[in-house]
């Protein structure tokens, strides 16, 4: 009988400890979640406060009872946020499109075709992966300037196209497609190009989607290159636009309008992420580092 109570005691204590650990875990996780979400909340909140209300709050308020959309209207009318968004969209779509074209062809050559010097070229490609952007951006800046391509889409897009890592990623994926498929297609008289289009690309669709999403994120957030290469607001992307707004737009202190602009440029990517949550996280885990 005594032993039995002992066990009960142990069980109770263990249960208590488990509960405590669990509670602490959830509390910590929630704290971090709040720290992540709070800036988003704050920008939403500020963006719907009216200019007057915001500036009269010496002690910031955590909510507002009279939300207004006027800041959003301001964001599109006072500064050319619409223009920036359109520019970024054009830049993102074209850059990603060219990137896909180049990457697919190169990955196919490495994965499927046999030619002299393939291994050496691939090795060079791999070593280029380690070269930081900062090292090449200087010459690119000079090149684009000399070619008179400042403040043009060509100047923005061309140096932003290449991502050696994606060639590597796609090549690995292409190589996982069984050799038998290629030989089967050959027996059926399928040309290399047709095999690429009708078999390899459809099979590798998940990887292609991942690559596309990662590149879109990269384009949407790119700041350094556009900043160097554009000083005409007509060619600003959103990152440069937001910097411009911060320093010169809205008469500097119209923070609610600024926040409205921030919300507008943040929403597309957040939506993209929520829709393709799995793909994005998978892709990033496979080797995307930010920047």
């Amino acid at each position, binding site marked *: 009988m005594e032993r039995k109570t002992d066990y009960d005691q142990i069980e109770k204590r263990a249960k208590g400890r488990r509960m405590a650990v669990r509670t602490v*875990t959830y509390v910590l996780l929630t704290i971090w979640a709040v720290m992540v979400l709070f800036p988003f909340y704050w920008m939403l909140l500020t963006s719907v406060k009216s200019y007057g209300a915001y500036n009269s709050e010496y002690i910031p308020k955590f909510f507002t009872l009279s939300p207004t959309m006027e800041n959003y209207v301001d964001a599109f009318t006072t500064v050319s946020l619409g223009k920036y968004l359109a520019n970024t969209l054009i830049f993102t779509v074209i850059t990603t499109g060219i990137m896909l074209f180049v990457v697919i062809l190169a990955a196919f*050559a490495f994965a499927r075709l046999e030619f002299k010097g393939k291994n050496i070229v691939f090795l060079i*490609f791999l070593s280029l992966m380690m070269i930081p952007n900062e090292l090449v951006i200087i010459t690119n800046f000079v090149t684009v300037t000399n070619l008179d391509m400042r403040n043009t889409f060509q100047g923005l897009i061309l140096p932003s196209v290449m991502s*050696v890592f994606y060639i590597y990623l796609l090549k690995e994926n292409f190589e996982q497609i069984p050799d038998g498929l290629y030989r089967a297609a050959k027996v059926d008289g399928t040309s290399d190009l047709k095999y690429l289009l009708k078999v390899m690309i459809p099979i590798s669709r998940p990887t292609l989607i991942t690559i596309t999403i990662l590149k879109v994120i990269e384009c949407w957030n790119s700041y350094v290159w556009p900043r160097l290469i554009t000083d005409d607001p007509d060619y600003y992307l*959103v990152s440069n636009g937001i*910097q411009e707004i911060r320093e010169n737009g809205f008469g500097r202190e119209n923070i609610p309008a600024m926040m409205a602009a921030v919300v507008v440029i943040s929403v597309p990517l957040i939506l993209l992420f929520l829709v393709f949550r799995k793909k994005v996280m998978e892709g990033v885990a496979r080797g995307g580092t930010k920047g």
Partner: protein
Amino acid sequence: MSRKKFRDGSLKGWLYLLPALLFLGAFMVYPLIDVFIYSFEEGYNSASQTYFGIGSYNYAYVLHDPYFLQAVKNTFLLVIITVPLSTGIALLISVGLNSIKPLRNLFQTVYFLPYVTNTLAVGLVFMILFKKTAYSDGFINLILHWFGQGPIDFIDGPYWAKMFVLCFYTIWVVMPFKILILTSALASVNQEYYRAARVDGTSGFRIFMRITLPMISPMIFYLIITGFIGAFKAYSDVVALFGTDLNGAQMNTIVGYIYDMLYGDSGGYPSYASAAAILLFAIVLTITCINLLISKKSVND
């Protein structure tokens, strides 16, 4: 036969590779060679594209430039503070995340959000949260006030306060990647090790130290190495917080120095920029090599 083979195989391969080769050649290989040349051309004038001579003057200039030294100091501080802190916190969060079932997906999604947001845009929000203006002390100072601390201007105030904001924001930005990598590393540890350890009556802490940590140590090293590289290249988050006049704010980083040399109010000196870029590359390469050596050694032990 051999000619036909060439036409069939080699030519086709190179043809498919051609676009990639063009892009890489024009915007990576050529610039890579060129940046070295620039860095040794003394007195390069970008308007007339002339230079006086070849030498190491550019390096000497950069190394004696107080702005560069300030940038190096800032960058090193940022690296030393944020890399260990962010990796440690990410590990803590990932372990917590891995031990729960309900709400796990929700937490994971929320934690990943900073990855997909525009650094510049959210940096602006941080700036507003931390900034003290004539109209308002700002949100962070409100919290400090609750704890009886005086208002501090984090954005235009003392150096340590600015550094604090920068580190805080940097950690906030890099956390999603680290949490993601560590949670998937933790999830891939074979559950049977845990069961075996539990049957042996091993305590939770001991399980973590003796089983979990060694199992995921390669991933931790990977994060530390990429973390170092990333933090050394810090720039856009600094711009987001302190604006483009970073030298004035005493908050410039090495990358910021490079760009300022290249373009902007103090720009027009690609030679100095090149020298600084190569110095940065050398620093990053050295540190990465040291990291690799250490990680190899401790993984082998």
